[in-house]
C-alpha cells in the first residue's frame, strides 16, 4: 500500500511540473523561443500575488483576478517591445535576452521583497485530504493543482483548435513567412501567445506559492523542472508536458521513497535516461 501512496503522490506532483512546463512549451511551440526567465516569472507571479494579498487583503485565489490580466499584459508588451526583435533563425539571441530578464527579475525581487522565504496561505484546504480505502489518503490541494493542469491543457487545446487566433498560432508556428503572406500580423500573434503563456505562468506561480515556500532566487530550479518536463514530453507538444511532468513527478516520488536524499536526483537521472533513449521526447512536434 505504501507504493500506491508513493505513485499517487508522484502522479500529483507531476501536475505541478506540468503546470510549470505548459507556458515554456507554448512559447517554444509557437515561436521557437526558449524562455530562460520562465522560472523567475513563476516566482514573480507568487510575489505579485503576495503583494496583492498584503495590500488589498484578498485571498490568494482571488488575487488571480488581478495577477492574470496583469501577466497577460506583461507578456503581450514584453513580446512586442523586446522579444520580437530577438526572433530569427538563431535560437541564441532570445535565450540571451531572457537570461538577462531573469537576472533583472531576480534582483528586482531581492530589492523589493528582500531574500526572505514567503508562502501564501489558503487555510485548511492546504492540509485537507481525502481517504481512499483504509490507509491511503490524497491531499486535496495537490489534487486541485493536478486538475488545474488538466483543465489548463484542455483550455489551451480549445484555444488552439477552436478559435481563429489558435489557427493563427498553428499557422505561424508552421511557417511564419507564409503566415505573413496570408495577412497575419505575426508579431501580434506572438504577443498574444506570450500573453497566454504568462497567464498560465501566473496560475502556476500562484498555485505553487500556496504549495511551497519561495524566495527571489527560486526561479532557476522551477525552470529546470519545467525544462525537464518539456523535453521528456516532446518540445512544443502540450499534452506531452503532462506526460513529461508526471514522468518527472513519479521518478522523484519513487526516488524519494527509496531514500529522501535521492528524490531530486532520481528525477534528473530519469530525465537523462530518456534523453539518451528518446532525444526528442515522447511526442516531438517540432521537426528540426
Amino acid at each position, binding site marked *: 500500500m505504501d507504493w500506491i501512496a508513493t505513485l499517487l503522490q508522484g502522479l500529483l506532483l507531476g501536475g505541478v511540473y506540468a503546470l510549470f512546463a505548459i507556458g515554456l512549451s507554448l512559447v517554444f511551440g509557437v515561436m521557437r523561443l526558449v524562455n530562460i526567465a520562465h522560472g523567475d516569472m513563476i516566482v514573480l507571479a507568487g510575489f505579485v500575488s503576495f503583494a496583492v494579498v498584503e495590500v488589498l487583503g484578498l485571498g490568494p485565489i482571488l488575487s488571480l483576478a488581478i495577477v492574470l490580466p496583469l501577466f497577460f499584459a506583461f507578456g503581450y508588451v514584453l513580446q512586442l517591445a523586446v522579444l520580437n526583435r530577438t526572433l530569427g533563425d538563431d535560437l541564441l539571441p532570445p535565450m540571451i535576452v531572457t537570461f538577462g530578464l531573469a537576472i533583472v527579475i531576480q534582483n528586482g525581487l531581492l530589492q523589493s521583497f528582500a531574500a526572505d522565504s514567503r508562502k501564501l496561505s489558503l487555510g485548511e484546504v492546504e492540509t485537507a485530504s481525502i481517504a481512499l480505502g483504509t490507509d491511503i489518503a490524497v491531499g486535496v490541494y495537490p489534487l486541485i493543482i493536478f486538475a488545474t493542469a488538466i483543465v489548463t491543457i484542455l483550455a489551451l487545446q480549445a484555444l488552439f483548435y477552436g478559435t481563429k487566433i489558435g489557427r493563427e498560432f*498553428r499557422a505561424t*508556428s508552421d511557417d511564419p513567412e507564409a503566415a505573413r503572406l496570408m495577412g497575419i500580423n505575426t508579431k501580434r500573434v506572438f504577443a498574444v501567445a506570450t500573453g497566454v503563456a504568462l497567464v498560465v505562468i501566473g496560475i502556476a506561480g500562484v498555485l505553487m506559492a500556496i504549495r511551497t515556500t519561495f524566495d527571489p532566487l527560486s526561479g532557476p530550479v522551477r525552470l529546470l523542472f519545467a525544462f525537464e518536463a518539456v523535453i521528456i514530453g516532446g518540445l512544443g507538444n502540450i499534452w506531452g508536458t503532462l506526460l513529461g511532468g508526471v514522468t518527472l513527478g513519479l521518478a522523484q516520488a519513487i526516488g524519494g521513497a527509496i531514500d529522501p536524499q535521492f528524490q531530486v536526483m532520481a528525477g534528473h537521472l530519469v530525465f537523462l535516461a530518456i534523453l539518451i533513449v528518446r532525444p526528442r521526447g515522447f511526442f516531438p512536434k517540432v521537426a528540426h
Partner: protein
Amino acid sequence: MSTIETRGLTAHYGDFQALFGLDVTLRSGETTAIIGANGAGKSTFMKAITGLIKTAPDMIHIDGAPAGGRDAHTIISQGIAMVPEGRRLFPSLSVEENLLIGTHAKRSGPWSLDRVYDVFPVLKERRRLSGTSLSGGQQQMVAIGRALLSNPTTLLCDEISLGLAPVVIEELYRTIAELRSEGLSIVIVEQDVARAVRVADQVYCFMEGRVSLSGAAQDIALEDIRNAYFGI
C-alpha cells in the same frame, strides 16, 4: 482594381544584392508574365512586392501612392495575394483550415469557402485531411484557393505548374484564365515560356536581377526571349 509599379526596385539578402533597379508595371486587370532563368530574381521580386523583403517606400507604388516598406500583412490587406513558390501549405492545418487562413486578411468580395469548393470540388471531399497529405496538384489548388479567399485584386503566382502533370497544369491555367476574365490582375512566374507568353498581356524577362526584355506579349518574338533569357 490597382496598378502596381516598381521604380528602381532593389533587394538584398544580407550583403548579397538580388535585384538591381527594376522598373516593372503590373497593370490593373492584365496578366503579366515574368520569366527568366533560375536565380534571375523572379521570386525575390514577388517577395519585395508583398513586403516579405523590406524596400524603400518609393520603390513600390500602388495606384501612384508609395507603398514600399510596409509589413506583409498590411500589403495583403490592400488586396495583393500570393501563391508562393513551393505552395507553402501549413502542415498542421487541415485543408479547410488552410483555406480559411486566407479569410484572416478580412477583405470582402466574391470569394467564399463555398465558391472555392465549387471551383475545386476535390478539396471539399478532402477538407478534413492535412493539407500536406494531398497530391501536388491538389495542394496547389489549396494554395490558390487560400490566396483567393483574401479577395485580392492582384494575384501573384510563383511557378504554380512546377512538378505537376500536364492535365493538372491545364486545369490550373483554365482557372487562371477565368480569374482574369473576372478582372483580377494576375502575375505569373512560369518556366514554360511559350505558355507564359500565351496567357499574358505583358511579359517581363529578368536576368541577374535586371529586366532584360519587356513588352506586350503579342509583340515579343520567342527568338528575342531566348536572347534575353540567357544573355546570348
